[in-house]
């Protein structure tokens, strides 16, 4: 495939596991990117997942929604993550994210928007990214109930540094961006040391923590605006305990917003016109056929 044909574009890392079909998620996310950002899409994947892409998706859809495919051979470190699908179901699955910093090397674009496959673009807001120099990510988040995330997703620990989300990472090809990704790689390589230093919890390797520490270091260990934060706008999310139960059309999603304090309580929410990070991936996969139906019916 031609390199650097397009100046701006969107990349997704897509590595399947036995529990979640990331290919299916990526194809849905790419469809929304084409609809609202109208940008070329690059899928970064491995040989096995690429095989599944060709087997599970029609060639017509692949041609329509994917412009570049980059096959990687990186060894993906074991990283078991606990997922929820509403408050009532939980499962564990491999979370392959150890090479995410290599997007600098893998992206075919001069200006790249790296999105997670569960981030659904529902308006053109992210096009503002291309007006930034350097790097941009969200450092605020708001649930579909308009609640803040759990405390350990606001700060790395109670007295810790501000958390930045690696769900959406914009970067250009500046020296500063290169330094950012080199630092991210260094932190990933020395994750246990930085876990000790920054006191963040858990055994899961999280790139959110890597980028948060990188931002902190590059900011002179203080708060600064060296990294763009989407003008203080929050990233809206469907938590793993929330659910997406239906879609009136490609835009209006009917969701159940679960109470963070009383897990038996949900409220119905119609979510429209704002991008959504759908952390409950199984819910997204369940509603996908309906969404595709709506796309095709137009």
């Amino acid at each position: 495939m031609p390199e650097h044909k397009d100046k701006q574009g969107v990349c997704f890392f897509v590595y399947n596991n036995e529990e979640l079909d990331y290919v299916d998620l990526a194809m849905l996310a790419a469809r929304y990117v084409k609809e609202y950002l109208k940008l070329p899409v690059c899928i970064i994947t491995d040989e096995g997942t690429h095989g599944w892409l060709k087997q599970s998706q029609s060639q017509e859809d692949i041609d329509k929604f994917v412009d570049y495919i980059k096959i990687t051979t990186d060894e993906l470190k074991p990283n078991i993550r606990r997922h929820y699908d509403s408050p009532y179901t939980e499962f564990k699955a491999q979370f392959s994210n150890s090479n995410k910093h290599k997007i600098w090397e893998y992206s075919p674009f001069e200006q790249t928007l790296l999105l997670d496959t569960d981030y659904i673009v529902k308006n053109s807001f992210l096009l503002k990214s291309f007006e930034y120099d350097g790097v941009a990510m969200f450092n605020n988040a708001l649930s579909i109930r308009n609640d803040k995330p759990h405390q350990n997703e606001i700060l790395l620990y109670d007295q810790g540094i501000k958390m930045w989300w690696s769900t959406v990472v914009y970067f250009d090809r500046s020296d500063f961006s290169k330094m950012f990704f080199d630092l991210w790689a260094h932190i990933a390589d020395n994750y246990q040391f930085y876990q000790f230093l920054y006191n963040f919890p858990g055994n899961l390797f999280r790139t959110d923590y890597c980028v948060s520490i990188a931002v902190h270091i590059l900011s002179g260990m203080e708060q600064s605006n060296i990294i763009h934060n989407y003008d203080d706008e929050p990233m809206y999310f469907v938590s793993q305990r929330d659910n997406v139960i239906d879609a009136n059309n490609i835009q209006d999603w009917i969701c159940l917003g679960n109470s963070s304090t009383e897990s038996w309580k949900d409220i119905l929410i119609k979510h429209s016109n704002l991008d959504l990070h759908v952390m409950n991936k199984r819910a997204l996969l369940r509603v996908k056929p309906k969404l595709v139906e709506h796309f095709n019916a137009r």
Partner: protein
Amino acid sequence: MDERLEKALEFSNYTLTLNNQKQNIKNRVAQLQLVHYNGGVFVANQETISFVKTMIDLDKTVDGVIIDSKDNPIRVKDYKDLLEKLVDAYVSASQEYAVEYDKLRKSRSIKSIMDW
């Protein structure tokens, strides 16, 4: 359950859902009001629009600088162009706000709020 309480709880659920939907509309409007200009970011609200218009009216636009919403000084070469962008964003955001707000105001049940 006491029918009076049942009705009140149903209304309570409706209010909760309604308030959340109102906030979702405001979230969308906030995004629409953001205007990037010459490396700065401005919120297209009445205050910013009035300020830019005042600068134009008082002919204070030569070598002009405006402090943006991130407290950075932004050089503005063409105030009219900035004003136009601000007004466009404001009009578009407030129009969408009005349409969605009206829809919500007419919805008397959770089902109709959901349009489902």
